[in-house]
């Protein structure tokens, strides 16, 4: 069984690394975004491999589903896509290479230094901050009777089951949970304000009925002389009209 998992693991990691690399290499920025989405999907597959379906599903939902759309929209609506103009390498490319290599070293050295992954021993949750270690150790033993999850007698316990996360949101991490929801709310309201303000500033095109009503109210002009056939009130006037009516 381990052989197949090893095979899948190396395959996935090759996919993620390759698509990561392609994000940087490829010229067309839309292609770069698509390669990024491919790497997100790869990471989601990793989570499934690690038997953490909830995190995997959330990864798909959040990253592949929503954030990628956000990026694509942003790219499409802002600037010219096919990047012929931009040249690939700066004059002093070697400085960038050096910095990249340094960072990579910082990451790779500890993993090589501690050969064994801090995998949880039997029954012991993984490396958690000291303060929660006591609380964490209590939970698995006295799982609430009512909702006994159909727990397959998997060898390793659920590292991060949906139930665990849900409970911890409401228990230890209640404060960060509320603060982050507040943050999201602020972001939402910001988006609405920007969209709303931008919509009103745009030149409002008057329909025929509104024009007739405006003409009647602004100048009290009788309708003996109907409008110019396909002429339209000069933008300035309609602008003033809308502002005044608001």
């Amino acid at each position: 069984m381990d052989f197949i998992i090893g095979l899948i693991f190396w395959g996935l990691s090759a996919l993620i690394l390759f698509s990561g690399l392609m994000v940087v290499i490829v010229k067309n920025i839309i292609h770069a975004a698509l390669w990024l989405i491919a790497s997100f999907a790869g990471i989601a597959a990793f989570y499934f491999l690690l038997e953490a379906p909830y995190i995997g599903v959330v990864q798909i939902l959040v990253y592949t589903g929503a954030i990628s759309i956000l990026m694509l929209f942003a790219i499409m609506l802002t600037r010219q896509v096919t990047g012929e103009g931009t040249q690939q390498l700066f004059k002093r490319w070697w400085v960038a290479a050096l910095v990249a290599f340094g960072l990579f070293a910082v990451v790779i050295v500890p993993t090589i230094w501690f050969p064994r992954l801090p995998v949880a021993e039997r029954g012991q949750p993984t490396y958690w901050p000291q303060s929660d270690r006591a609380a964490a150790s209590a939970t698995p033993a006295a799982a609430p009777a009512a909702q006994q999850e159909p727990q397959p007698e998997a060898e390793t316990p659920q590292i991060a089951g949906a139930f665990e996360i849900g409970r911890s949101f409401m228990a230890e991490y209640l404060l960060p949970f509320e603060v982050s929801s507040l943050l999201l709310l602020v972001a939402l309201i910001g988006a609405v304000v920007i969209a709303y303000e931008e919509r009103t500033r745009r030149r409002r095109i008057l329909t025929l009925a509104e024009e007739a009503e405006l003409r009647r109210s602004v100048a009290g002009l009788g309708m003996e002389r109907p409008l110019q056939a396909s002429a339209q009130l000069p933008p300035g006037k309609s602008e003033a009209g809308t502002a005044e009516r608001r």
Partner: protein
Amino acid sequence: MPLLNQGELRALLERELPGALDPTRPVNRYGNVEATHQLEVEDQASDTMGDTSPPPATGDAAAERQADVVDKEEPSVPPLSQDDAVVRAERLPDVAAFLRDRLGYDYLSRVTAVDYPAYGLIEVVYHFYRIEGGPGQIVRVRVPRDNAVIPSITPMWPGANLEERVCYDLFGVHFPGHPYHKRIYMWDEFEGHPMRKDFEKIGDSYYHFKWKGEGGEE
């Protein structure tokens, strides 16, 4: 306001808008005089408006009329009606405004151009009606065939927009002041105006369209 019957409009226009009516009497170049008479150029000013009976036909023209020879090659040309209000081209917008504001004819039904090569003119017929119903009024404008120019009434009557474009496209009557003075049916590079009587009909053989530039056959 009361409905006008046929002849009344002429009298009313004469009284209200002096100079709006078109006094000229077109002559028929082929001598087909059944409905026309000599152009009294000299009494332009003191033209007798009143007589609406068709003018008497002079001797030789009637004889000619008899011979069926004339009837054969040149189709007889319909008479130009005298009793309707024939308006001078440049005064048309005023007459139209007068009709709508003072007489209450606020619905323009039809703008038609009719080509009379025999009289050398194009007559554009305007049919005005009341939106409440009842018979309408006809206003005619006669313009020479070579430079037919009638001021457009589209700024006041948006309904005439497409009709005037049809008259321009098929008859070549220009309407200065029209908001979108372009051909309606034909493509823009088309030369000539198809509904004119002298537009050479080629039956069903293919019409070799000459591009402006090349002037060549195809």
